[in-house]
């Protein structure tokens, strides 16, 4: 703690913020302050209240109690424009960009009158170029946002905030969607921002990132601020234990006991879709008692493989076999009935129905079978009993089974999905990015559940862009690149660097040459 730090100007102060949702206290008298030129990290499990707190600061919610001050001025509650005007900019986890508009249009959207002049646009373009230069956020101003990568879109979001003269940047789980390379770029940008006198609030649950970028870390647990530490004084382990309230044990992964082959893909190809490649003559065996990890850079055919295993598409050519029997018809319902648990990549869009309550979501895949449905009639009481079991068993934090699922945090949503599919005792588990956007507590929980299912004899197909996750959990690793699948590598037989070579698309030519 140096004197310059303590003497620095406090730019943001939250004073005993309390927010309740029904019986749930999302924020319990939280106070914190941020100084100029400082990066603070907000760390906490899902549902710990991080996002709620930031939504209050940004005027999306009004606090039940407490005040927000920005640059010494109290902020009127429930007014995002006031927060913007005061110099607070927020980059949400889910981007708020118009795909069919250009970068420049997105950045200036809402800042100009309806009849803006050509001159204004030229000025806007100059300002954007200068900001991009100052902060190292390179994006082409005339590119359509729809054509940008996720990392580039995030840059546009940050530029949007900076364009509105934000002095305090709030980033909600910014790295959840980024590759390691993109994360490094983001951190470089943040360091530049801090050097230029901005302050950053960084919401995350990736410990090594918090350690890497922040000056100070605040830990939330069950809506309470439980600790506040300078980053120099803590280790990853202490952070983790503070966060979940007990010593965290990373699951120790014993190798699986491979059983018989449950599903086999033989030379399967599927059509390309847009810019994402389909599968190119992919052969793959899913064996009982094994985690099969699929590594690869996003958009290299993972979606096609997930859809194929999940029953959404069938093979265009090649064979799909279940229990050694060739499948002629294949649909999501058949997949569910064949005992395939499907954890979709996008919890919000495909995994749940936002306006349905927990009960209605919990039976989404089983609604047409007993005990929930008999001869066309729903048996809601049975469904609710099941939902309560899932809530208890999987520790879904919610006011009750009749809560609309959109009010739950991502982690709790994922736990409900997990309960929904695992309670059916699946033989095959398709886990597509199962821990994306989750905090360490939830990550470990999901991983432990997947491994437990494996040890009960399920075949787990784990799709992830996080190589660490893949190497930690998988008994066999395949790499996917441009729709082609590498041979299976046994656990520990390839270093991350070697897998990286395959991920970059090398090695497949030799393989196909060898095969033919």
């Amino acid at each position, binding site marked *: 703690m140096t004197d310059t730090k303590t003497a620095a100007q406090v730019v943001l102060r939250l004073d005993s913020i309390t927010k309740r949702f029904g019986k749930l206290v999302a924020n319990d008298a939280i106070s914190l302050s941020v100084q100029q030129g400082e990066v603070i990290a907000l760390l906490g499990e899902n549902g710990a209240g991080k996002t709620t707190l930031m939504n209050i600061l940004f005027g999306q919610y009004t606090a039940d109690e407490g005040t927000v001050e920005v640059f010494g001025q109290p902020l009127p509650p429930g007014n995002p424009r006031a927060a913007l005007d005061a110099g607070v900019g927020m980059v949400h986890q889910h981007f708020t960009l118009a795909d069919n508009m250009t970068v420049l249009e997105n950045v200036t959207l809402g800042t100009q009158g309806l009849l803006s002049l050509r001159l204004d646009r030229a000025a806007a373009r100059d300002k954007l170029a200068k900001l991009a230069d100052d902060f190292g956020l390179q994006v082409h101003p005339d590119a359509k946002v729809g054509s940008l990568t996720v990392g580039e879109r995030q840059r546009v979001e940050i530029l949007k905030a900076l364009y509105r003269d934000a002095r305090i940047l709030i980033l909600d789980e910014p790295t959840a969607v980024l590759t390691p390379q993109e994360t490094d770029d983001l951190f470089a940008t943040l360091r530049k921002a801090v050097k230029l006198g901005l302050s950053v609030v960084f919401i995350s649950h990736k410990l090594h990132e918090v350690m890497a970028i922040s000056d100070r870390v605040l830990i939330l647990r069950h809506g309470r601020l439980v600790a506040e530490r300078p980053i120099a004084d803590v280790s990853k382990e202490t952070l983790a234990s503070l966060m979940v309230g007990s010593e965290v044990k990373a699951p120790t992964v014993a190798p699986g006991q491979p059983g018989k082959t449950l599903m086999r893909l033989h030379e399967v190809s599927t059509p390309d879709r847009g810019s994402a490649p389909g599968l190119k003559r992919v052969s793959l065996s899913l064996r009982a008692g094994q985690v099969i990890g699929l590594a690869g850079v996003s958009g290299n055919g993972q979606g096609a493989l997930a859809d194929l295993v999940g029953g959404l598409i069938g093979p265009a050519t090649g064979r799909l076999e279940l229990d050694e029997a060739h499948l002629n018809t294949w649909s999501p319902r058949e997949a569910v009935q064949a005992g395939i648990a499907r954890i979709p990549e996008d919890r919000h869009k495909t995994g749940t129905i936002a306006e*349905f309550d927990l009960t209605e979501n919990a039976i989404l895949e089983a609604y047409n079978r007993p005990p929930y449905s008999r001869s066309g009639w729903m048996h809601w009481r049975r469904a609710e009993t099941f939902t309560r079991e899932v809530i208890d068993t999987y520790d879904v934090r919610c006011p009750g089974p009749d809560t609309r699922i959109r009010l739950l945090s991502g982690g709790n949503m994922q736990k409900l999905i997990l309960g929904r599919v695992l309670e059916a005792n699946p033989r095959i588990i398709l886990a597509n990015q199962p821990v994306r956007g989750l905090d360490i507590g939830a990550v470990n929980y999901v991983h432990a559940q997947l491994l437990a299912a494996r040890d009960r004899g399920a075949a787990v197909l784990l799709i992830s862009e996080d190589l660490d996750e893949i190497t930690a959990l998988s008994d066999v690793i395949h790499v996917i690149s441009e729709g082609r699948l590498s041979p299976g590598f046994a656990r520990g037989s390839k270093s991350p660097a070697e897998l990286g070579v395959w991920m970059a698309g090398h090695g497949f030519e030799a393989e196909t040459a060898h095969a033919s």
Partner: protein
Amino acid sequence: MRLEPVANPSIWRTTLPPAIAIASTVVVASLLAMAAGANPFSVLGLILKGAFGSKFALLETLNRATPLIFTGLSVAVAFRARLWNIGAEAQLYAGALITVVLGTGMLQWGAFALLPALAISSMLAGALVLLVPALLKVRFGVDEVVTTLLFNFIFLLFISMLLEGPLKDPMGMGWPKSERLIAEARLPRIVEGLRLHWGFGLALIAAALVWVIERRTTLGYEMRAVGLNREAAGFAGIPVNRVLIKTALLAGGLAALAGFSEVAGLKGNLTLDLSPGFGYTGIIVAMLALLNPLAVVAAALFVAGIFVGADSMSRAASVPSYLADIMLATALLLMVLAILLTRFRVVRE
């Protein structure tokens, strides 16, 4: 100004805006009545009296509400699954058409056999009429708003052709109207001597059944899931297209019952002015009811009351009965706004 979603709306937030919408509608009507040179209080009083003020008025309102309940249910069911059925008008006429084709002597059965047969064939005809746009939608992605809307005109012209040709009543003095139904094909009155036919009872039963279907059956669950998130529904294994087709069949059948009930209960024959836009007004009814099948009954009574009351008022106060159309349009617009306000909060920037 911008809108932001309200996480858990209070009871006031859900009830107050619709109440204010109705109150504002009354205010707008009063202003217009004043502009027409009448005392607004007496105009409103006359509308109320004309709609509900006497036994005759009340029965007239119930009669007028009957087809609106059917078309309102039809739209509510379809919209719930996000199937934008604008074609209740055509489906209504399909039901009416089948009723006169079978009920003017082709089937010589007793009433207890004939009436159910007519109702069921009407539903089948209406279902068929909506099946075509629904198939076009799920097969080729053709926008059902366009197809169902245009189908209304095609179907009305088709009816017109039939009424000028094969269905024309030879005793009709040259008017384009069908022959009258045989006595066994007429819906009896609920109470002898009162001008209210069993179509109204059928409408109430239909509303209750639709509610049961939506809340208690597997199909209802599927329809709601498909309406709220088609992608998640499809992923979970709900056969989205099949559900849309079933929804279309149900919605088409419900609208057709309006035609059956109007012909068999009220008019006795088919003419081109059978429906003064009941199919389109059904959209207003369904929206006012927030697609809730039980609320459809209340909304239909409200809408029918305004029509009937305004007719009676215009005779007494010489204010044009177009006031009814303006009131309905205002009520609908304000209600749409009110629904928005129940779910979103306006934030001033």
